[in-house]
């Protein structure tokens, strides 16, 4: 019991901080690029804009290819790339690189779905005013898709939290790494249970905040 408390006191803060860094850095990158790619997919598949079936299928193929790889394998394959971008792949920043690559296609699909769900009539009405695409995006697509995008962000953040544990075990640190090193490898059940409880609380909080925010933007 005392040992558990000592381990947690010494390591929990750093672990949480590392996990937070990984999740938020990758989350930020994923939302920006994922939204853009999702919008790109929507724009080139929607008959109201500029359907380009070939371009769309190529893009779709690349996305599906990345998503086909189990994260464990993708992570290993991406170690050289993480090294190139972040310098040291075995840091939270290095971990965030492979997390981003894995999650961008995932979020892009969610974003595409969020845009595609918008009532085609509303988009048609927007086009009938003579508005250009950027204005339509700002004033129609974005506000109408925002609740669905927020729910997608929540889903993505929770997945990133889960995958960050895997990145942690190859050296990027974080709360998952703490659980494996002390809880599993050193048979300290107390640490394992504590980490599980903390993860459950974090996921609940993220989901609750996301739902509230999504509701706030739904009129």
């Amino acid at each position, binding site marked *: 019991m005392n040992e558990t408390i000592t381990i947690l006191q010494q390591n929990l803060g750093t672990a949480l901080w590392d996990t937070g860094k990984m999740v938020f850095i990758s989350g930020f990158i994923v939302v920006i690029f994922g939204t853009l790619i999702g919008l790109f997919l929507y724009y080139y598949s929607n008959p109201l804009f500029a359907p380009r079936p070939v371009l769309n299928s190529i893009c779709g193929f690349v996305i599906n290819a990345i998503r086909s790889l189990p994260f464990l394998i993708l992570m290993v394959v991406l170690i050289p790339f993480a090294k190139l971008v972040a310098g040291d792949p075995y840091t939270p920043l290095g971990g965030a690189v492979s997390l981003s690559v894995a999650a961008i296609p995932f979020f892009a699909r969610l974003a595409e779905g969020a845009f595609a769900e918008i009532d085609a009539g509303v988009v048609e009405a927007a*086009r009938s005013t003579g508005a250009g695409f950027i204005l339509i995006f700002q*004033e129609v697509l974005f506000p109408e898709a925002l609740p669905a995008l927020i729910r997608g962000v929540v889903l993505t953040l929770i997945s990133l939290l889960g995958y960050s544990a895997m990145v942690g075990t190859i050296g990027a640190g974080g709360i998952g790494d703490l659980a494996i090193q002390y809880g599993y490898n050193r048979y300290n059940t107390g640490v394992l249970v504590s980490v599980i409880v903390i993860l459950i609380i974090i996921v609940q909080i993220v989901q609750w905040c996301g739902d509230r925010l999504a509701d706030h933007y739904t009129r």
Partner: protein
Amino acid sequence: MSQIELKHIDVTFKQKKRTVTAVKDVSLSVEKGEIFGIVGLSGAGKSTLVRTINYLQAPTNGQVVVDGTDLSHANAKTIAAARRKIGFIFQNFNLINNRTLAQNLAFALTAGGYPEKQQPKRITELLELVGLADRQDNYPGQLSGGQKQRVGIARALANDPDILLCDEATSALDVETAEEIIGILKEINRRLHITIVFITHQLEVARSLFDRVAVMENGRLVEQSSTYDLFAAPQSDMGQRLVNRFLDTDLPDKVKAQVTKQTGQLLTLRYRGSDSLTPIITKIAKQTGIDINIIQGRVEFIQDKAIGVLVVFLTGSAVAVSQAVQIFHQRVDYVTEVSAHE
């Protein structure tokens, strides 16, 4: 030159391996300031046709000329500019749900290049026009269907359009609200001299709103006339079907059977003007020696002109009855012989 000219418009859609023709060789012109209607059943191609006017739907063949600009050979910029002068009102309103009424209108104004500083004033003006001045900061979800359509109208009018296209603009509304919207559109047409093209399957709308009307069936334009002429004497099959159903001269089967127990001929007569048909009926009865019973009769007003609708039953000798039917055909605008077992 007419304000809107459609010349030999075809629209086809490729669906998998099938090609679906939505509009076939439609030519029509709409004059400045008139209210032009297109009626037809759903699936007749009306919605597709009206969307070619602002090029939301590019025609497969044919030419669209609006205010002298040939949109068929125009670039995206010219089409966007044309759209700013063509308002569009939809059946399902199509407002941006997560934006306030003011923001919905601001979007249309920005799209039309309206200076941002003057937008608030213009928004108030537009909402006043449709009687919703106090609802600026409401979201569409807080409005009733009729109120949403008023916002739709305000949005369509935002950039002082020359033309207003209405796609079943009253079809999602109850009768009373629909009449309200029709009233607003009439007022707009009268005061602002905006040309209106309105498509609908509701003949009530045609009766109370249109100056001229075209009938569509299976992608083709089968008839075009003044609204009054369409109701008084429809020429095409589809026109007759629509008008007959609207004027509802079909008798219930039970009544039909009872009346026609005797041998004779059931006739539906439609005639222009509010004058009574009685002199003609009396004269024909005298001339041919048959009996004429009036089963049903009423007067409809279309564009402030009357159309009489009368269902009569002729009895007498077969020769005399057929002679009388012939005379009716000569003297009355529109005659249909109703058989008992239709």
